[in-house]
């Protein structure tokens, strides 16, 4: 059997230069889309049995257990993050454990491109494409938000204070990448609020 050839959405892109933040593609992330009724105790218990965590019910939040993370997407939908190699297995385990409980678990590891944005000023860079109040307390580490970014749909996950993961649908990966190259240029760096040098 030949080796399988696997290519991430942004595999053909070089690492960018002269940006005000650190930008790269995360290639090793597995993703499982999980649907179920949060008020169904059997569903929540079965999910916990497989994932080791209580699926978050608080909007825009996330929960971690080991190398698995559950992002709240809507009242009956979660995105389960895990190492890529584990995703198919996890989706199958969820489906098996959930059995006849009304639910749907799908391995969607290839559906989105994951962009890691890191550094001082990362929020300002994102604000060039988003009208969310990213400087507010709503966007602390762990926060999750489906959003309109630039002209496309995206999912934002605050990993750390200055580390963000931006999920976009695979076909828009190049567009999102190019939008970031344009808005994160070193020459267009901006800091919102704080001490300023005064007019110059």
């Amino acid at each position: 059997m030949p080796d399988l050839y696997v290519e991430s959405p942004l595999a053909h892109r070089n690492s960018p230069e002269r940006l005000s933040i650190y930008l790269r593609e995360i290639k090793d992330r597995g993703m499982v889309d999980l649907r179920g009724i949060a008020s169904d105790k059997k569903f929540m218990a079965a999910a916990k049995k497989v994932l080791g965590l209580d699926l978050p019910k608080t909007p825009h939040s996330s929960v971690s257990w080991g190398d698995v993370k559950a992002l709240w997407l809507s009242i009956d939908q979660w995105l389960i993050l895990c190492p890529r190699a584990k995703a198919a297995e996890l989706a199958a385990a969820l489906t098996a454990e959930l059995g006849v409980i009304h639910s749907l678990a799908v391995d969607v590891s290839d559906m989105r491109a994951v962009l890691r944005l890191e550094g001082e000023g990362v929020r300002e860079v994102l604000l060039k494409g988003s009208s969310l109040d990213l400087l507010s307390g709503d966007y602390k580490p762990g926060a999750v938000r489906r959003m309109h970014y630039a002209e496309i749909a995206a999912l934002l996950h605050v990993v750390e204070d200055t580390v963000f993961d931006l999920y976009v649908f695979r076909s828009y990966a190049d567009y999102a990448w190019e939008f970031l190259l344009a808005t994160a240029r070193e020459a267009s760096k901006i800091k919102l609020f704080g001490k300023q040098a005064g007019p110059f």
Partner: protein
Amino acid sequence: MSNKPYRLLEGGSRIDRSKRVTISFDGRQLPAFAGDTVASAVMANGSKLFGRSFKYHRPRGVVGLGSEEMNALVGVGDGARHEPNLRATQVEVFDGLHAVSQNRWPSLTFDVGALNSRFSRFLPGGFYYKTFMWPQSFWKHVYEPLIRKAAGLGRAPEGRDPDTYEHIHVHCDVLVVGGGLAGLTAAKAACASGLKVMLADENPELGGIADLTAGSIDGACVGDHAKAVAGQLYAAENVHVLNRATVVGHWHHNYLMIFERVADHDPALLAAGTPRHRLWKVRAKQVILATGAIERPITFANNDRPGIMLATAASAMVERYGVSPGVNGIVFTNNDNAYLTALGLKKVGIGVRIVDSRARAEGSLIARAISEGIEVSMGSVVSAVEGSQGVTAARIAAYRRGQGRVITERKIDCDFIAMSGGFNPALHLWCHNAGKIKFDENLQSFRPDRHHDAMQAVGAANGTMDVAATLAEAHAAGVAAAKAANGKAKAVKYKVPEVKEPTRAPLESLWFAPATGKYNEGNKHFVDFQNDVTAADLELAQREGYESVEHTKRYTTFGMATDQGKTSNLNGLGVLAEATGKSIPEIGVTTFRPPYTPFSFGSIAGVLTKNLFLPIRRTPIHQWHLDSGATFEPIGQWRRAYTYTGAGETKHTSINREILSVRQKVGLLDASTLGKIEIKGPDAAEFLDRMYTNTFSTLKAGKCRYGLMMNELGFLTDDGVTVRLAEDHFLMHTTSGGADRIAAWLEEWLQTEWTQYRVFVTPVTEQWAQFAIAGPRARNVLAKLGADFDISHEAFPHMSFKEGKLGGYPVRVFRISFSGEQSYEVATPANMGRGLWNAILEAGQELGIEPYGTEALHVLRAEKGFIVIGDETDGTTTPIDVGLEGLISKKKADFIGKRSLEQSFLKAPNRKQLVGLLTEVPTDVLPDGAYAVRALKDKPPMEMTGQVTSSYHSPTLERSIAMALIENGRARMGETLTFPIDGNKVIRAKIVDPVFYDKEGARQNA
């Protein structure tokens, strides 16, 4: 031009005399200092002429101080970096700046269009409307080009804009608009609360006109006090100050747009790649408008001559730039403030006298002027001005309020006039956000009144003109805004500062300064300088019945164009009030519309140009398509490979080659764009029965079925093959363009109508790369690749499904066919798409596999008579119209659109029906959309009886084929239709069955 030195020997708070720069104006090299504006630099060189007026081409100079400037519009920069219509008073100079005057031909001093002025008696208000009425067709080709050439502002830049622009969104607790004394005070008070405060100011420096304001605050002059507060705000951690940033619009819920000129003033910034402009989209919890007030000109005869400027502008020329507006001037006023200007001019040795329209007034500034020996003529007006390209003399006449004309005048030599008719609070942003306004008798102007949003106006913008009251009011507003934005904000106690300022006598309105004859020839009393609207025009409009001020505005163009009536609005209303005997509030005001000042198209576009103009969706095979010479076709936001044209081929020949390879050997299509939706739940089958016209609950697991979807109106909206993966689990395929729409449509029905259904819908389009392997050798390709499932026809017949591995890649394989050939659609996780694609090509090489594009796909399906939603349907087409009545269930109780199909209109006998067409001449290919006519006539209109929906050359059949929607078409088989097309050509075509090839479907079942 004059040889007099206009640059004073000392002074000028904004300029740095140690930094000399050279700019050019209309090609003339002019020395200037860093800190100058184009206005001050040109005036420092003794020139007052900046441009020609819009309609009469009258010579015009600088009138204003900043963004209210309406005359001195210049074009700046060369070629692709040229920007027209900039206010010379706002353009900061740098070494090598190129500016040009506008609206003059061939030169500024000699202008052919100025003949308009000579013939101005023939150019009254509404002239264009009255003259260029008829015939209608002349508008586009004769009148409009002529008017555009004669009237107008600057020219557009040439070539692509080399600079970058961007947008940014920001939320703040308090946004203060305007960085003058009021804005600074309010921002400082709000800042103390610790909340997020923004301060936007359109000038390079904060302070507004604090530096031109008389008095002191706690012992410091007003300008120094402002500077100190500005310094505190720059240093604060919770404040963001924007300089050179104009708030251009203010909308409901305190959404504001700020136009920041980031790099215009410094070519080094531009060269470094700094965005030239940045557009801020701000959502503020609280807005404080400290937009100041705009000085009013006075309407007197020939008040537009170069050298006549606003009093504050004259003061600023001296104080800020060390530029003298002339050597011997007149300050013409109806208020005390302009006395400051006179005192300032006198202090630097410029000759000045004061003409005051008020009969008497007692204020400390007046007393000071008299005591310093300035000649003050009370109860007097400037009744006319002499000189054309500048002022040579003014005529002064005695005046009492309401006086209609002047009997005697005396002539006084002078070379400039500084005028002040009072101040109008800048209400634009207040009104953009639907704030109401009221007339204030003391100010003789409108000021803010009621409003519904979280906004306040302070300082001059609120009609508060003195320093002590402004400080108190602005501080209170800052504290209140912080408190309202966040209940926990701590209030800052107001420490009443010690303020010293002159006492002021009240102003008296002066809407029109009379001349000897009311409007004698050559004496124009301009109200709106930018649009050349005079007091006479406004009165004429009234006499002609344009009573509503909004009608007067449009008829005369008063208050329109780039300055949006900043200086003209109230004077115009005053003239109208006097002409009609009504009060100004009875006349009303015209609407303030965004933008406050014009802003650049570049800033509106931001980074969304070129490759970012439109989001483009790429399939996992996109790069291979690019590398393989594909041309692309847009399908929604996707780009799909249209055809792969090799060396020595045309698109036509490559398309034919691709088609024949599918018919004779095997082809490979990238169908990844196809919509894919997983649907699961105990009620999934019943749900699908309701969504589709045909039945899916009877479909067996592992089988595929083609489905038709209608909207509630009974019209076709989507189609595709749905697979039953398991009893309660389906995979729906939609059209490429319909993927998102149909997923949302399914969710909508589940969430709003059929909430009892236990069904989950998860779109997975992008998870899969999907390819069609189609052609008589398709199965051989699968065999060659190596499948871990039985691929024999018996085990894997048409319309069935397998899951397994192909060439080692995990796949879902659907035996479905859109080409009519033996065909397998193979889906693999997207990241493996490219690997499987390569493997298929490699395995198929010896079988003659060729990739084919979307055009071949379309011809293949047309040969088979398969419809495409959006080609054969147009949103008013039913399944019956396209001959798919057999897919409408007669057994199901209900499904979307069922009831609508019972409407008489959709059952009418003469509806257009899908048919095939064969042209009489086989090489004729009907144009898409060509109309069949009932009877051919010499020229349109002709009665139409249907239209071509798809039309191709079929290499399989070696002739053209077409599909069409024709009235009652199915009953008209064999009839020949007539299609008149471009170039007087007529194509005749016979109605036939729409299935042109392999009617029995033997090939796809092979």
